[in-house]
């Protein structure tokens, strides 16, 4: 069952009431504009999660906001998964049929959707070709890119680029994720919701209950990676790092993840992970169904160290979540992770299996240092990566696009 959306005012406890007043003021200046967000999955993955939380707040601010989800079949999602990998620089081959499948699916969806918002935000590559219909609808169209496209395989990028350049603007999570485009490029980091089931404060009893239900023993320090079972998240690399750690520190590894409906590779990767884990009783692999937010929250809070050993990343919101819970994090220096972690100040960055193992051991052996990192990391998230800041930047973007100036007086 979906979580009830909090009231905007509820966030005042975390970010201050003045922030809430500013949001209301900015929204007021947008005078009831209609906003649409379109992506390719309603559940699973960071984008759907953010939209689930953002859209009710847009509406509470008086902006009539709708969320549309692209409907695709298996060949379409196989094709867009390849696009996703290729944008991350992975070698993928595309046939003419692949591109046809993509275009046909976009065209089919356009037949059923009404995209008449004053501001239309298209998320990621899957629905990018919707922009072909923009003349029919009017409004300002913005492509919100959640992946790092700085070093893509060019065949995939060239295919997409012709659509992207037809938007009014693009949004990237960081400048280093962007590509050279002929349109304006804004930079908005994603965010987490401090009041969601996944991130709200939990009592000790709630954590204990969830861990008991998941049958995760608490007799040893827990090292956790929460991520989809995806090659780019390198769950196998985490197992290898954990095996190095285990030579000198007794601990338990939890790999917890679910699938997203737009990720057909998940089952294959999960099988590979199970095989690599073998019968090791200290490696727990949890396949969590969509909506296991309370469970994920509890696992992160019960962990001694949280790991995110991705090979490539978008922004890596699982890192943001762990930092918000005051946990020491060991994470690869890829994608948006270095924006979130100042090495040895707000967490630990690593570049290899061995490096990850070394940092995990350090943190398990130095709880005082680990606690200090956790506190700094939480403060950094409070300042920069919470949902209210994200919402504010969407409002500012709409105002900035309308004015076209570097400085706009309201």
């Amino acid at each position: 069952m979906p979580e009830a959306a909090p009231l905007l005012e509820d966030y005042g406890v975390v970010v201050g009431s003045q922030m809430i007043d500013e949001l209301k003021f900015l929204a007021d200046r947008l005078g009831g504009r209609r906003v649409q967000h379109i992506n390719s999955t309603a559940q699973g993955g960071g984008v759907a999660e953010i939209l689930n939380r953002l859209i009710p707040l847009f509406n509470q601010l008086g902006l009539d906001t709708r969320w549309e989800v692209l409907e695709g079949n298996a060949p379409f999602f196989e094709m867009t998964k390849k696009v996703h990998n290729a944008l991350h620089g992975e070698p993928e081959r595309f046939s003419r049929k692949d591109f046809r499948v993509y275009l046909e699916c976009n065209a089919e969806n356009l037949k059923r959707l009404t995209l008449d918002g004053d501001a239309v935000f298209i998320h990621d590559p899957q629905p990018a070709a919707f922009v072909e219909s923009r003349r029919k609808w009017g409004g300002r169209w913005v492509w919100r890119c959640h992946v790092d496209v700085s070093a893509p395989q060019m065949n995939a990028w060239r295919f997409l680029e012709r659509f992207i350049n037809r938007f009014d603007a693009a949004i990237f999570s960081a400048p280093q994720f962007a590509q050279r485009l002929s349109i304006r490029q804004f930079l908005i980091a994603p965010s987490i919701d401090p009041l969601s089931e996944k991130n709200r404060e939990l009592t000790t009893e709630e954590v204990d209950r969830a861990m008991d239900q998941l049958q995760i023993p608490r007799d040893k320090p827990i090292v956790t990676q929460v991520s989809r079972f995806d090659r780019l998240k390198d769950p196998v690399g985490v197992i290898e790092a954990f095996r190095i750690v285990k030579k000198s520190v007794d601990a338990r590894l939890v790999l917890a993840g679910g699938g997203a409906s737009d990720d057909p590779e998940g089952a294959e990767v999960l099988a590979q992970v199970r095989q690599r884990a073998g019968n090791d009783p200290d490696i727990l692999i949890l396949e969590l169904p969509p909506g296991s937010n309370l469970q994920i929250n509890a696992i992160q809070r019960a962990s001694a160290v949280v790991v995110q050993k991705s090979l490539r990343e978008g922004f890596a919101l699982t890192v943001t979540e762990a930092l918000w819970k005051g946990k020491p994090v060991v994470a690869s220096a890829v994608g948006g992770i270095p924006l979130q972690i100042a090495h040895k100040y707000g967490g630990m960055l690593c570049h290899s299996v061995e490096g990850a193992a070394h940092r995990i051991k350090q943190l398990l052996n130095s709880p005082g240092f680990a606690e200090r990192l956790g506190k700094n990391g939480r403060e950094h998230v409070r300042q920069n990566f919470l949902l209210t800041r994200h919402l504010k930047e969407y409002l500012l973007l709409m105002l900035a696009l309308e004015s076209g100036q570097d400085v706009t007086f309201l």
Partner: protein
Amino acid sequence: MENRVVPMKQAEHPFHFYARQSIQESTGWRAVTLPQFLKYLRIVPGSVIYHHTHHYLQQHQFLSPEPPNDFSYWAFQSLGARRLGERLASISTIEFDTIRSLREEIVRVVEEHLRAHPLVRLRIVPVEEAFYFVKAVTVVFPTPYTARSLKEFSERLESVTIDSLYFHIFEARLRLERGENDFSRWFETGLGEPELARAVRALDPYTHTMEELRGTILRLVRRRLEGGGDA
């Protein structure tokens, strides 16, 4: 000279507190060498220079006022040009009234360094440590707070957001080229308090955190309210 009269004056034109919020826009330009860096420094819009010399003040507002500007941080940390990094860090932004003159100084320092250390032009940083030129796109808006007297001003200054403080101290003076911060201007022309205006003008806001700055200005205003002059 001390002025012991407690200021009760009501200004004809009240002080309106504004606030500002910014989002970042990428220019698409990045530099991996010092000559590239210099080339873009010369041509980027003023909003880029403003962003890279000011965004630390807000993003890391809870830190002590150590990080001076992105240019110096990149030269020092990524390019490994420590002397250049230090020189860029020591540029005193408060001494410049326009972004144009601030940019000229930054460019001059980099040019001088390249002349004195020609081999540094051969250094190439890894692409993940490139300098990305980003600009600030800003929306300025009125807050509900106004003040007609120094007492009211003191009360309001306690409650406005640091975005408001930031706008009147930094954005108004340098980016909007008003020549001085808005508070000093109002103290002098609106309230007839030239000494207080001078004292606030003399502060170097770049060496305070935002909350420290608020506290310092409040102390000056309160001292004046208690009848102290030469604030």
